[in-house]
């Protein structure tokens, strides 16, 4: 690509750059940074630095639809539309190339060129397509390791967000040719009007108006333009936090019968290479009490555990009763109530005991569980050992069966009511439950939450539409064109309404109103 460094060459070269479409595969198109500052100094105040670089269709555009992009270079015969608005990174309006306008007023340095070339290659279309596709396909198959996916999607997102980030530096440009304006989505011309009136009316409608000579540029809803960038940043943040979580946290779970205790450090295991234990891992957790609430129908409504935390010196540092959806947080460690089971039955037989009979799970279906235990009667070593069976669905009531397997009765542990089975007096003293606790430390959570919040916010904001309007005073006619990135339905109507308000100028006063 020839150097575009002279003003004279402006008219010739711009159309060429204008309609360039290069293949992303073909990076023979070298990126160049050009500074038009000095050239434009006299005419356009407010540095319009213009950089043309190798066409980088942002990987976002791609998706599977874009495999067959046209690779021709089309030169236009139209008189030079000097600086065409190139709205957003991903796409081009009106069939023009997305000229990636890079740094503002930057001078071409070797280092920058190199990095940009690397970027070119890395943010390459097929690479990103491949990444996104593989992620989606693998997710659908559901057979993948979290870290690998996180890493892959992090890469994809990084490259897709570099480009919109850079777009922040862009400035708004004026359109100086009637042709370009007419090509906008909404275009109209007012035969006898002044561009000043248009400007005033637009200002009244909430637009930011910039008037320069015979041309005008107005926009509204700036947030709607930058919000998509925010969305990608938020996604990056989430990915980073997720990676940190995956590599730097500790997880563990334990089932503790009521009355026992454990040390946190014994239960937690690292998940990745960044996991480092903290002093709080020496804390000892006592399960003081485990109990459950029930609905009237008998089903489990909620289960609670009363926990005490003791530090290494034996001092109690925290006491809390946790339940599902209400975890305990201490020093970066969070303890969740996730499960329950029945650990043992305390039974008195003929006033002897209490015997602790361990309960075994017979059938587990979510919160519907069945536990059973067996009190042997007679010689333990004989082959036909018989005994009393006890089944429990929860800690509320125990069902007892005699030695033949026949139903004997139901008892509640709290009642201490004896039951007579085969001549033996059985008292259920207590049903001891055990608490299923999950614990973890996760350094990535604050980052991920921040990313979540940012994502929600920026997604909502990006729903706002960003409208841009250009106008040109051509003799006594004002040519107006505009577009909106979201409100495609309402924008033309709004424009029509506004343009109706522009006063029509009668012949005699035309010369005065022209700026």
């Amino acid at each position, binding site marked *: 690509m020839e150097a575009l460094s002279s003003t004279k060459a402006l008219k010739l070269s711009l159309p060429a750059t204008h309609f360039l479409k290069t293949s992303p595969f073909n990076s023979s198109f070298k990126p160049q940074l050009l500074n038009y500052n000095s050239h434009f100094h006299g005419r356009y105040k407010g540095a319009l630095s213009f950089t043309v670089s190798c066409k980088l269709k942002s990987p*976002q*555009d791609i*998706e599977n*639809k*874009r495999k067959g*992009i046209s690779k021709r270079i089309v030169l236009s015969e139209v008189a030079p539309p000097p600086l065409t608005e190139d709205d*957003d990174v*991903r*796409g*081009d*309006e*009106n*069939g023009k190339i997305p000229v990636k306008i890079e740094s503002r007023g930057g001078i071409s340095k070797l280092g920058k060129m190199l990095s940009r070339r690397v970027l070119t290659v890395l943010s390459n279309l097929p690479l990103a397509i491949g990444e*996104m596709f593989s*992620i*989606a396909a693998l*997710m*659908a198959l*559901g057979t*993948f390791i*979290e870290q690998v996916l996180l890493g892959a999607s992090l890469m994809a997102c990084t490259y897709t967000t570099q480009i919109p980030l850079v777009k922040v530096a862009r400035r708004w440009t004026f359109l100086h040719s009637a042709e370009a304006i*007419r*090509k*906008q*989505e909404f*275009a109209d011309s007012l035969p006898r009007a002044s561009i000043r009136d248009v400007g005033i009316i637009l200002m009244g409608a909430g637009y930011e108006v910039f008037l320069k000579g015979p041309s005008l540029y107005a926009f509204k809803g700036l947030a709607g333009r930058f919000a998509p960038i925010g969305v990608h940043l938020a996604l990056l943040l989430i990915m980073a936090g*997720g990676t940190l979580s995956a590599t730097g946290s500790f*997880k563990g779970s334990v089932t503790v019968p009521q009355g026992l205790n454990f040390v946190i450090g014994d239960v937690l295991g690292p998940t990745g290479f960044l996991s480092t234990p903290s002093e709080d891992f020496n804390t000892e957790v006592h399960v003081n009490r485990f109990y459950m609430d029930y*609905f009237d*129908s008998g*089903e*489990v*409504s*909620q*289960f609670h555990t009363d926990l005490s935390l003791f530090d290494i010196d034996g001092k109690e540092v925290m006491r809390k009763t946790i*339940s*599902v*959806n209400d*975890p305990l947080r201490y020093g970066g460690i*969070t303890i*969740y109530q*996730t499960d329950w089971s029945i650990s043992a039955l305390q039974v008195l037989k003929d006033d002897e005991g209490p015997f602790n009979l361990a309960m075994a799970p017979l059938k587990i279906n*979510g*919160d519907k569980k069945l536990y059973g235990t067996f009190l042997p009667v007679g010689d333990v070593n004989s082959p036909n050992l018989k005994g009393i069976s006890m089944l429990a669905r929860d800690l509320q009531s125990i069902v007892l069966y005699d030695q033949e397997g026949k139903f004997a009765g139901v008892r509640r542990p709290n009642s201490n009511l004896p039951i007579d089975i085969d001549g033996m007096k059985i008292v259920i003293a207590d049903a001891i439950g055990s608490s299923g606790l*999950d*614990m*973890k430390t*996760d350094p990535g*959570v604050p980052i*991920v*939450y921040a990313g*979540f919040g940012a*994502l*929600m916010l920026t*997604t*909502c904001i990006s*729903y706002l539409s960003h409208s841009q309007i250009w106008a040109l005073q051509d003799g006594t006619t004002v040519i107006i064109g505009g577009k909106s990135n*979201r409100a*495609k*339905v309402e924008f033309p109507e709004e424009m029509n309404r506004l343009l109706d308000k522009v006063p029509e100028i009668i012949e005699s006063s035309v010369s005065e109103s022209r700026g």
Partner: protein
Amino acid sequence: MIFSTLEHILTHISFSVVSIVITIHLITLLVNETVRLYDSSEKGMRVTFFCITGLLVTRWIFSGHLPLSDLYESLIFLSWSFSIFHMVPYFKKHKKHLSAIIAPSVIFTQGFATSGLLTEMHQSAILVPALQSHWLMMHVSMMVLGYAALLCGSLLSVALLVITFRKVIRILGKRHNLLNESFSFGEIKYMNERNSVLRNTSFLSSRNYYRSQLIQQLDRWSYRIISLGFIFLTIGILSGAVWANEAWGSYWNWDPKETWAFITWTIFAIYLHTRKNKKLEGVNSAIVASIGFLIIWICYFGINLLGIGLHSYGSFLSN
């Protein structure tokens, strides 16, 4: 006792009203449009909306928790969201073609929910401990609203595809020199510079002009509704992740339902991005949205059929 009979009445009223509305729409299709009929269909949809609202409120009062805990209730919520989305464009004085698409959705959802398949679920059940949380409201309602909006938008895109491709089949038989005469419409002229050939070949008569206007309207409305649905879906997924973190300690488990919700999110993100590029707008983005339609149903329904994973509350088998 009163509540369950009240529920029954409301369910059946809404079901019948919606079927009447559909019938009216069909009649207007076959016979000439009568404005009076159209008005009554609007009123019918509003009646449906109130009935379903009443149904939901009744269930809420009766069971003590927000009616979102299992498949049946979320289906009712879905048809409620459909009727809301139906009414929104009505307030903006826009198109009745939306109504033609949304009303059948409402009826199918409602019909399925009340059908015999789910009779066991009709009684309001108790909430298991894991669902007893304030997050339930936010997460499930946002997800269902998001599904409703995305389904509406995808249906509009499907309609767009149907209309477009019906023309193609007919166009293929016509001669190409008629193309040149199509450039006389000033307003549509700039549209010709845009993407697909399909559009260019469509301006062969004024009838096709109106049809292309319809296509454009469908396209834009689909875009708007899908963007809105995307926001709801994002908020729903993220609130679900935060809830999971509060309840189980991990905000993403690659649970089937979570995974498919993420896939849905990705597909619609693809859709939004294809809209940015003028080349891909129109038919291509409509194809993506139609794929999204299928994926939403897989995510919402198919996973429940499997009945596995953390989201098994909605399963047919869990009862």
